[in-house]
């Protein structure tokens, strides 16, 4: 009952935030015009262009990416039974960065359809390589903590390779890569947003089919096995799913940190449950909300410049993670 009220208010808040996101930016557009735009009424031509070509795509990108990254984070936290698991912690984002670095620094360009395509390809390949290595390790070793640490090490390795590549390239080549690394919801075209939407829908459907394994994983893999879950198979599907989802989102919006790590924790704290009946929709909604909020803040409404998205998500995410950790039983157990 209580969670229904929270879900209801969350949906309303997301709608309000969506309108705010359309209204605010370097040029602010009055709310009546925004509402007119949504209902398809005629508005000033300059406003229409801004809303249609910049703010609407950007809002949609923020919502889809935030939901997707949070879902990834939730799945990884359940699988690894660890509140510190997340796409960036497991080295998946770093794998994407390495793939993108190889493409960009080897002379590929960020602009043009061919350029974007190869960047996406690089990011997905990078993420998939890390994910497949993690899957192989998780098949070989039972202990999930060990797999988590292996993922972190793969992340460090990828980052090291990225800095070596960066060291040997000139500033011309480096600039688009550094820009990509800041993270941004602003640069997606009319093909990429439907792609993102499609991937997210697939991911949600697969996640719903994982409903039982995910819940049964909460008391541990041995327990899941004893109530009839095929542990190995579920584990591989979860890892592949999160790898693909994170890889594609990272390719499009850059390695956006902290959303995947912090949002599922906020959800568990707000709803006071770890059951996936609540945490799956909760993470999708909260992820969309928080990503959009971070994006609006990063625009610094009224100014011509914007902050790097990654700085804003970290400013939100790091305190949340700290707060949740200090409150959680996890710490009490480690310290006792």
């Amino acid at each position: 009952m209580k969670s229904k009220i929270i879900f209801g208010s969350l949906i309303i808040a997301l709608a309000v935030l969506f309108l705010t996101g359309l209204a605010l930016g370097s040029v602010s557009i009055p709310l009546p015009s925004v509402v007119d735009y949504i209902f398809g009424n005629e508005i000033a031509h300059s406003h229409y262009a801004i809303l249609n070509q910049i703010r609407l795509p950007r809002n949609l990108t923020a919502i889809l990416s935030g939901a997707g990254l949070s879902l990834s984070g939730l799945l990884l936290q359940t699988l690894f039974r660890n509140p510190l698991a997340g796409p960036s912690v497991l080295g998946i984002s770093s794998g994407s960065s390495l793939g993108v670095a190889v493409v960009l620094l080897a002379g590929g360009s960020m602009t043009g359809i061919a350029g974007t395509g190869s960047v996406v390809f690089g990011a997905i390949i990078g993420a998939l390589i890390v994910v497949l290595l993690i899957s192989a390790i998780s098949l070989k070793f039972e202990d999930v903590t060990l797999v988590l640490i292996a993922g972190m090490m793969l992340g460090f390795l990828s980052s090291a390779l990225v800095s070596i590549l960066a060291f040997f390239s000139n500033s011309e080549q480096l600039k688009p890569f550094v820009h990509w690394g800041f993270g941004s919801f602003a640069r997606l075209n009319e093909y990429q947003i439907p792609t993102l939407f499609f991937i997210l829908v697939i991911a949600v459907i697969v996640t719903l089919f994982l409903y039982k394994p995910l819940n049964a994983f909460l008391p541990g893999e041995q327990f899941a096995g004893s109530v009839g879950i095929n542990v190995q198979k579920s584990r591989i599907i979860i890892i592949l799913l999160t790898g693909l989802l994170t890889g594609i989102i990272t390719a499009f919006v850059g390695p956006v940190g902290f959303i995947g790590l912090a949002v599922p924790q906020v959800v568990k704290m707000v709803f006071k449950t770890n059951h996936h009946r609540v945490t799956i929709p909760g993470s999708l909604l909260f992820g969309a909300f928080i990503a959009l909020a971070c994006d609006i803040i990063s625009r610094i409404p009224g100014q011509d410049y914007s902050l790097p998205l990654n700085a804003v998500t970290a400013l939100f995410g790091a305190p949340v993670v700290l707060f949740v950790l200090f409150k959680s039983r996890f710490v009490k157990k480690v310290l006792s």
Partner: protein
Amino acid sequence: MTALLNIQDLAIGYNKNDLKHALTKGFTTSVFPGERIAIMGLNGCGKSTLLRSITGILPLLNGSIQINDKEIGQLTRRERAQIMATVFTSYNDPGQLTVNEMVTFGRYPYTNRFNKLSERDLLLIENTLEVAKIGHLRNRIVGELSDGERQKVMMAVAIAQDTPLLILDEPASHLDIRNKALMMNLIKNLGEEQQKTILFSTHDVGLTLKIASRVWLFHNKRINDYKIDEFKQGEHWKLMLEGLDADVVF
């Protein structure tokens, strides 16, 4: 009566292809519905290994274990979970799950992908909460329960699975005197009234004498198989004290 479990020339241990270091070998027996078998022996003798082998978690070194005439290795996880329920001592904090949600996991081997519960499922869960005497805890968070309460909840999950075979690793180890009595009654009733077969490991001779109908005693890398009366009269448990003064214990 047909046997539920047929064990043939079984050898168990942790090193594959290393029969020489097997914990025990050449064990052959049959287990029938309603039997309550206590598995006893010193630390490290292979009690847990035997239980893990029977549940199919651990590959056998030699021999075969058949349940209802099917090799355990051939069963899918789901089929296996419909035939046997297990409660192990190792336990992970499931985080914020209620007792009710936890016990519902016991119906997972029977429900569809989205865990749609039938009338019968709901009834069984309700009965289980009552039988395990944890109805008053149903909305509590599992991670916040005491060790004893938690152990009853894990037992309830196994009961909700409604399987002909229950495998319990030290079922009374964390329990106070009251909960221990409750657990003993529960195990005894499951065997006597519902004809369920229960294999449990324990160090507690008193518990064994009260509720077991049969004892498998590990001794010198062999499993000695006793009816409970033989075990009582022969004081076979004293085998475990070999070379020690039994008076020290009592």
